[in-house]
């Protein structure tokens, strides 16, 4: 076995020469620096002393899920890649971990010990940073897929069109009316309602979007405007629409004389209501 040691011991220099001057799959060559992609490299640089392949006695510190491990490689196990690295779990406490490294690498060359400790320090620093960052609320960046956005936008428009919301809302409101949900809410003469309902039913039968016959009763707007109109009716007590319109016209005339007023609706209500009340 000892002979095997000697036989293998020869190889470090040879390995380095072949790797450095020949080919190494882990080497990344940049203009001024060479880096090493090897997972077990302590420094990350491509150096004679940092190369985990060219040094039969080597140590690194690696981090897995927040726990640091000390990996040690010795010449005795150089022939068996499976058992090459001895993995030692380091304590979470930074100071204790440093001591652990010193203990495990007790008579090792200073370079290895020092670099392991440096790496451990860096790891702890970035772990701390990670923990701090987790506490902060960071906006999650989501990429915008132009194609997807465009596609969805068009589909949305199509779907909206297909849904025919106005119709649906109108029908729903009429249904509600019929059911009598608005009986307490709205003070409307029954006849007017019936008229309207009949008209709307006619609409529904005909399946038309707009009730053009009922322009004089209703505006061309939705039945959403009903409540607005109810206000209108309130102001005029129980007068029929015709007289209301006359008053409306008077109110308009009155309004035109007034210079200050801006809002039409408000002005309509106020002067007329004042008029009527007094």
């Amino acid at each position, binding site marked *: 076995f000892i*002979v095997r040691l000697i*036989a293998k011991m020869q*190889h470090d220099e*040879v*390995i380095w020469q072949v790797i450095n001057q020949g080919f190494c799959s882990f080497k990344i060559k940049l203009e001024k620096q060479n880096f090493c992609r090897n997972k077990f490299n302590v420094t990350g640089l491509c150096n004679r002393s940092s190369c985990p392949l060219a040094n039969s006695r080597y140590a690194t510190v690696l981090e897995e899920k927040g726990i640091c491990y000390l990996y040690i490689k010795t010449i005795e196990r*150089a*022939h*068996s*890649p499976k058992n090459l690295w001895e993995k030692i779990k380091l304590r979470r406490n930074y100071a204790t971990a440093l001591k652990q490294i010193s203990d495990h690498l007790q008579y090792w060359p200073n370079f290895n010990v020092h670099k392991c400790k440096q790496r451990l320090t860096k790891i702890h620093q970035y772990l701390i940073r990670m923990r701090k960052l987790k506490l902060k609320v960071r906006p999650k960046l989501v990429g915008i897929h132009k194609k997807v956005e465009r596609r969805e936008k068009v589909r949305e428009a199509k779907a909206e069109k297909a849904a025919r919301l106005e119709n649906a809302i109108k029908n729903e409101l009429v249904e509600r009316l019929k059911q009598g949900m608005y009986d307490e809410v709205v003070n409307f003469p029954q006849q007017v309602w019936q008229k309207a309902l009949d008209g709307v039913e006619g609409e529904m039968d005909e399946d038309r979007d707009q009730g053009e016959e009922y322009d004089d009763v209703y505006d061309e707007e939705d039945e959403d405007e009903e409540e607005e109109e109810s206000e209108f009716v309130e102001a005029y007590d129980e007068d029929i629409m015709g007289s209301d319109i006359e008053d409306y016209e008077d109110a308009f005339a009155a309004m035109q004389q007034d210079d200050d007023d801006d809002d039409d609706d408000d002005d309509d209500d106020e002067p007329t209501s004042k008029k009527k009340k007094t």
Partner: protein
Amino acid sequence: MSGSARPLVGVYSITGESGNQVKLPDVFRAPVRHDIVNFVHTQVCKNARIPYAVCRRAGHRTSAESWGTGRAVSRIPRVAGGGTSRSGQGAFGNMCRGGHMFSPTKVFRRWHRRCNKNMRRYAVCSALAASAVPALVMARGHQIRDVPEIPLVVSNKIQGINKTKAAKLALTALNASTDTDKVKATKKVRVGKGKRRNRRYVMKKGPMIVFAKNQGGFQGFRNLPGVTLAKVSALNILELAPGGHLGRFIIWSEDAFTALKDYFGVFGKEASARKYKMPTPLIKNSDVTSIINSKAIQAITRPQKSKKPKKGVSHNPLRHNPTMFKLRPYEFQRRRMVAAAIACRRGLEKNGQLFKQKPKVKKYPMKKKAYRAQLKSKAKAAKDAKAKAAKAPAKKK
């Protein structure tokens, strides 16, 4: 390094269990010479080339002749005849449309290279030796992290695996399948025109499996991605060091492993299967650094010559007071005086010290004298103090 006791290599079953041990053949201790391997590889690589050339008569299928001078045209040969747009056009030259190319490629180009037999064999020895070094195999890019041992020797049953399914199982048991998986993942369409010339796909190289005898193993393993098969009797440098790079991952059958001795022999002795003597390493122990640092040699070497002292960090005296003091001891005094003069001028009241010193910058020469005298007296005082101090501990003792 004594040649008597040779290291042993474990033989693994096709299910991955370790069994008996075999002696490591001397080939694996041959000198690893990547320069020789590279050279041999480039030479031998050229031997499989198929000649290519342009058609012999390309560009010469006209009876063109130069019109000579006096016709207000260039003297290039022109196509004879008439009645077609081709007539009168330049021909033959590499600059002409439809002419021959510059230096038409010839079939009698020297395609193949010869390489010394011994050199070729040296390269093979080197490549085999490199394949026994896990570091070099890893550096080449093989995924051998979980392989039980390098060199990987498997029982002879591997030679009889004629089913690919079983072959894959065997490799998985030996943890060599990660290498084939890597190869499978790297299969991609070739870059360049080769893709339309029946060389569509490119893959990396995986493990090389060396048999002593084909008992069906070739059929079993040949379809696995990246796997190269070989017989011990015919080891190809192009397979052992693909691309001229050392460290192919090789899986040996037990018979093949032991047969290496027949083909390569032992250091200093000729092989039995062929007339070949392996290259003995020039240095027995190639770890030169450890030799130099060994006690035996360090005891003989002369002590290191004293190195020239380092220049040290040069400081800017304007910013670094000790350096300034070395160069100009008076500087600080001067500065103080200047400051005092300014303060005086402004009528500011600073430390009483300032007013103690007469800010007579004009009387510089005199002040310097006085200052020098001051230094002298100070030095003297220091000396006396030292003498006293020296006496005091002496007394104590």
